[in-house]
């Protein structure tokens, strides 16, 4: 295990089972060994089953190629007459059974350990929603949302794509090394699946269910994954980034988060006290809109068909303020339009509503102040 630690931070891996000389090729065609004991064990199971298949394949395909060459009509004009043999049928029924038993044993023991969620040191509740992850540290009360950070310009090929294209988030999940971390996984809307290949943890996030998984990460580094279950429009755009820090640094980080939460509370009070000008709100609002809203409603506010309606000239965005506020804060039941009140601050909600009411031909001139949002909560 320790021999792996050196090359892990880059996310690349050292191929020990493949005889392929070129490391990057092996990294591209083999299952990732990952960084945990379990991910390495799973890679070994993968290699074991792969080699069983290769050997069986060589035997079967070898026999086929041999017979195709040796028994073609020009070589063997008179076909043999045999067409049955109980003994042979028995043999090639029993041998596969024995091979399968041999494969099932390591898979069974590994599975038993994977499903042992007892004695964890800390618990993170992961709640998926379209198309973001919400992380709650149940032991320290910290919680935050994690969204895709790759700019839309890169997706639309207007800017060059950076190294971690589609695998970057605004707030990564931060975890300590060498602790047994239990994940509780659930969802708010549709089924998602939380997957980090380097930990070999893939657990479906299902509304109404709380699934369990665990990992213990022996090394520091940044590890990336993606949602693995089709969850609607932006399924490709809900990555997972995990930052693993040494235990002491992790504790410091937890304290920082507590402090930051307090500061955010103070900032919210200050924001409520201030009367904001249109330009300030529209500037912030545009940022918020691009990050959270543009994926469905589009940057030009024109939406995408009936399911993702246009905001330009819409009955809500150009209608009564109260309804607009209600829609943004509480969402629309049974649609991707989710409640934003828990996710965004008063200032962000006020900004984005002001922006929407004064863009793309909507020219109400309305200004919504954070205090209005606060009172509506």
């Amino acid at each position: 295990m320790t021999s792996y630690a050196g090359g892990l931070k880059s996310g690349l891996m050292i191929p020990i089972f493949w005889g392929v000389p070129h490391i990057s090729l092996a990294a591209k065609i083999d299952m990732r060994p990952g960084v945990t004991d379990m991910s390495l064990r799973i890679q070994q199971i993968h290699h074991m089953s792969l080699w069983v298949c290769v050997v069986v394949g060589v035997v079967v395909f070898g026999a086929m190629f041999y017979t195709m060459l040796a028994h073609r009509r020009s070589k063997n004009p008179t076909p043999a007459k045999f067409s049955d043999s109980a003994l042979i049928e028995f043999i090639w029924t029993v041998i596969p059974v024995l091979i399968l038993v041999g494969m099932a044993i390591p898979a069974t023991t590994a599975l038993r350990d994977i499903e042992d969620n007892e004695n964890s040191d800390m618990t993170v509740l992961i709640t998926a929603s379209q198309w973001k992850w919400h992380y709650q540290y149940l032991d320290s009360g910290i919680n935050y949302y994690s969204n895709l950070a790759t700019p839309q310009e890169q997706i639309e090929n207007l800017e060059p794509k950076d190294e971690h294209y589609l695998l970057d988030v605004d707030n990564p999940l931060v975890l300590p090394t060498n602790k047994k971390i239990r994940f509780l996984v659930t969802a708010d809307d549709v089924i998602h699946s939380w997957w980090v290949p380097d930990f070999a943890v893939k657990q479906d996030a299902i509304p109404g269910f709380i699934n369990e998984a665990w990992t213990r990460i022996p090394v520091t580094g940044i590890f990336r994954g993606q949602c693995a279950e089709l969850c609607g429009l932006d399924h490709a755009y809900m990555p997972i980034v995990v930052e693993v820090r040494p235990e002491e640094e992790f504790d410091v980080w937890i304290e920082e988060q507590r402090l930051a939460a307090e500061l955010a509370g103070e900032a919210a009070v200050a924001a409520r006290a201030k009367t904001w000008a249109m330009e300030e709100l529209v500037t912030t609002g545009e940022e918020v809109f691009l990050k959270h809203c543009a994926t469905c409603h589009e940057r030009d506010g024109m939406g995408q068909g009936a399911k993702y309606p246009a905001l330009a000239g819409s009955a809500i965005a150009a209608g009564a303020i109260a309804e607009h506020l209600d829609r943004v804060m509480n969402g629309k039941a049974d649609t991707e339009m989710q409640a934003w009140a828990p996710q965004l601050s008063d200032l962000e909600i006020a900004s984005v509503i002001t922006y929407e009411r004064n863009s793309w031909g909507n020219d109400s001139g309305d200004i919504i102040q954070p205090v209005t949002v606060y009172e509506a909560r």
Partner: protein
Amino acid sequence: MVAHAETVHKQRHPMLAFAARWLFTTNHKEIGSLYLWLRFVLFFIAGAMAMFIRLELFEPGIQFVDPLYYNQVLTLHGLVMVFGAVMPAFVGLANWLIPMMIGAPDMALPRMNNFSFWILPFAFAMLLSSLFMESGAPNFGWTFYAPLSTTYGPPSTDFFILGVHMMGISSIMGAINIIVTIVNLRAPGMTYMKMPLFVWTWFITAFLLIMVMPVLAGVVTMMLTDRHFGTSFFQAAGGGDPVMFQHIFWFFGHPEVYIMILPGFGIASQIIPTFARKKLFGYHSMVYATASIAFLSFIVWGHHMFTTGMPLIAELFVMYATMLIAVPTGVKVFNWVATMWRGSLTFETPMLFAIGFVMMFTIGGFSGLMLALVPADFQYHDTYFVVAHFHYVLYPGAIFGTMAAVYYWLPKWCGHMYDERLGKIHFWTATIAVNLTFFPMHFTGLAGMPRRIPDYSLQFADFNMVSSIGAGLLGLTQLLFLYIVVKTIRGGVKATDQVWEGAEGLEWSLPSPAPLHTFATPPVIAQGNDQ
């Protein structure tokens, strides 16, 4: 055939007569042809969708198909391929071949046969019409997991539900017809253990269809009531269970996988002995293996759901049962190899496709075995490794099986030999293209690329480009196949009645082309031991 149509409809306008002939036909050969042509049309539609998908995945970023449309195309590609391309192809072959193989004059229930075909064009028209609706087509994948397909499904989901119902009714009627025909209309002396393997595999497939199609109908009906009538079968908020959807769906879905491959096994078991000039090795064990696979297919549906939080004991049971399927499947492959062993082999196009079927299906079987191992499945699940796996069993399996069958029996159907040189070009280009398209998907999956995404991170770029190039080539081979089939129907070297020197079976005792009505009096079957 033409003479027949004229006698029946001679007083009508030729166009009307033509329409009436095909609309009202109760002849198993004509209905078989209708099924095969419908399959061709739908295969091209679903194939075009695959081209869209591969075009978008050629490079990272969004270029041609935005995510909204991508999900719709992805969904319809799967649905149309499964229900429109693979299944009607096998039903069409069953219609053409089963009566001729067992010495029956027609299918047992000809009027129902007509009905079960003519439902399909309307079912698919309804499903595909959703592409042109304001809110777009269904966009939740062909597995339509709730609640994405219920609470969050687009309005066109109801068209999908009704379409699936109609396809299910068609399949059930077709399956009943096949069972009734095989049970009742075998020529005297054609005992069960003398039936050709293609008939046996279809007999078993038909039972699978009858057992699971009502389950599919049930699950889409539950969706419908969840969407419109206030039930909460699959809605956690109402006390329902989204995972129950998956249990019911896969209780249909896993036997469905074998519905799409067992007739292919039958085809390979007909073709390989012909070109090996040697009897099929282990006829009895082939029959028993097929039946075992069918039985096991009912108790392994959970292997699609290992990551849903199943209890350990259930995971273990499903893993062991799934691994067991490798045993009868292995027996079949070994029997095919033993059939070829010390035969006198020639490699005409049907044989090439049959051998390609056996080899590449086996590769898909290998990855299936790997997927059965639950710990490894946690890494494979919902990645391109799975996409590679099921395309290996479906393309070189079901689709190559169909193509092998068409090359093998087309001379019997239309009386002309196909162009052997073009057939061989078709086989080799298709084989190269299939492997170019689907083999790299193993690698992208192992490296961590999730399935069903329109855009991916840079590390997956190279192999996706290879896949897309392969897919383009694979698309072109379909045009070649269409050309070969049309050319053969329009003319060519006259086929003999026997067609293939090594062919055995009742269908080869008939003239080529097979007349519209055959075996009006049952053929004489040689008495003696079963196969």
